[in-house]
């Protein structure tokens, strides 16, 4: 396992802190410049989660909350690989996901959308990437939902992803969208990302080859975490 410091994050590729069309960002965005901090051990290391963290149904959102039947909605498999910027697989990455049900409703006290809760759908799951970086989970297709921002803003169907790589500096939360959804290009949260090519990296294509016939469609979503330098040169430069 390589253990050097991480490549600098390309801040122009990520959304800026302030993006006025996403109104909540106006009062929640730092205004001062970030202070550059060379990675120390505190950033290069991170918590390790093993298989013992997981229960048998954690990666199956169709079953992990079900009370008296399957949740309503199109059954899907989401799978892909976790890689670093050098295209090396990242094994043992913890991936946590959450989403609305097929009607676009979240199971949350503060959720006020009139679409009904699904008694058989909780909306959370998690899994670990394998040696080759691959991961998969099963769920139902989330619905789009309206949200209070502009007078008529709708979120495209999406799944939220939280990813732990090997260093705390790699910590990332993002969202996965679905190929062909016209709401993607109208969404103020999607549009916080300045570069269209970067947005496209969050759109999972339909993967017919991995679809389970007569059961569940598959979507493929690859995730790239920050890469890191080899320790060899770094040790030499440190010199002591």
């Amino acid at each position: 396992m390589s253990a050097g410091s991480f490549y600098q994050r390309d801040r122009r590729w990520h959304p800026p802190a302030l993006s006025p069309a996403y109104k909540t960002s106006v009062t929640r965005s730092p205004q001062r410049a970030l202070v550059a901090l060379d990675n120390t051990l505190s950033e290069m290391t991170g918590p390790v989660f093993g298989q013992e963290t997981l229960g048998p149904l954690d990666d199956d959102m169709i079953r992990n909350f079900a009370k008296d039947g399957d949740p309503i909605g199109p059954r899907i498999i989401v799978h892909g690989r976790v890689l670093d910027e050098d295209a090396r697989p990242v094994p043992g990455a913890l991936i946590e996901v959450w989403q609305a049900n097929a009607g676009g409703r979240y199971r949350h006290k503060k959720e006020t959308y009139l679409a009904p809760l699904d008694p058989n759908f909780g909306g959370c799951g998690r899994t670990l990437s394998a040696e080759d970086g691959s991961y998969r989970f099963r769920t139902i297709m989330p619905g789009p939902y309206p949200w209070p921002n502009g007078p008529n803003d709708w979120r495209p169907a999406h799944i939220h992803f939280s990813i732990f790589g090997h260093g705390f500096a790699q910590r990332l939360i993002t969202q996965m969208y679905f190929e062909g959804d016209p709401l993607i290009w109208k969404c103020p949260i999607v549009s916080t990302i300045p570069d269209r090519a970067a947005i496209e990296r969050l759109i999972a294509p339909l993967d017919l080859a991995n679809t389970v016939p007569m059961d569940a469609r598959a979507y493929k979503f690859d995730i790239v975490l920050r890469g890191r330098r080899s320790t060899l040169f770094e040790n030499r430069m440190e010199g002591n």
Partner: protein
Amino acid sequence: MVQSLDRLKESPSQTAGPYVHIGCTPNVCGIEGVFPRDLGAMMLQPETRGERIRIIGRVFDGVGIALKDALVEVWQADADGLYPSPQETRGKADPHFTGFGRSAGDMTSGEFTFDTIKPGAVPFKNSRPQAPHITLWIVARGINIGLHTRLYFGDEETANAADPILSRIEHRSRVPTLIAPRAMEDGRPTYRHDIVLQGEKETIFFDI
């Protein structure tokens, strides 16, 4: 033309949104029976070595309102300054300490709490020591990319004064935003540490 570096780009960040707790601390928001316990809810075991401390704080927005939908994560070394990580080569960290904590904050006050131990010092690049510190990461609705900051300890004046990161911060008046004062509360050493996202008392956030 030159050859391509052929490097992939990192997946772009998106806000954690208002329902981050569904995925990251489901038990706290009433989704029970899916995960037996929330990740990072308990940092301590009876056998954990080190001084027991409590960290309490809130996250404020630019108009001074405490966020109720934030998620705060902490990562820290053990009492000897060792990280429980495969990248730790200086020794074996305390097997009874994970170093990782996660708090959804109180649903009404927004106050986050971590019961943990005071970490030992961790070396900087050239083996110079850093003052004891805890790394924090904050996400919430309206935060487009997670914010990295640190907590240093108010009772470590000498170590803080010599710390290679604190001493390099140009705007000296902002340094106190990283230092939590110590007080005894409920018979336990407690560090109060508020995080201010924007404005006059804006916390220092790091580009790491």
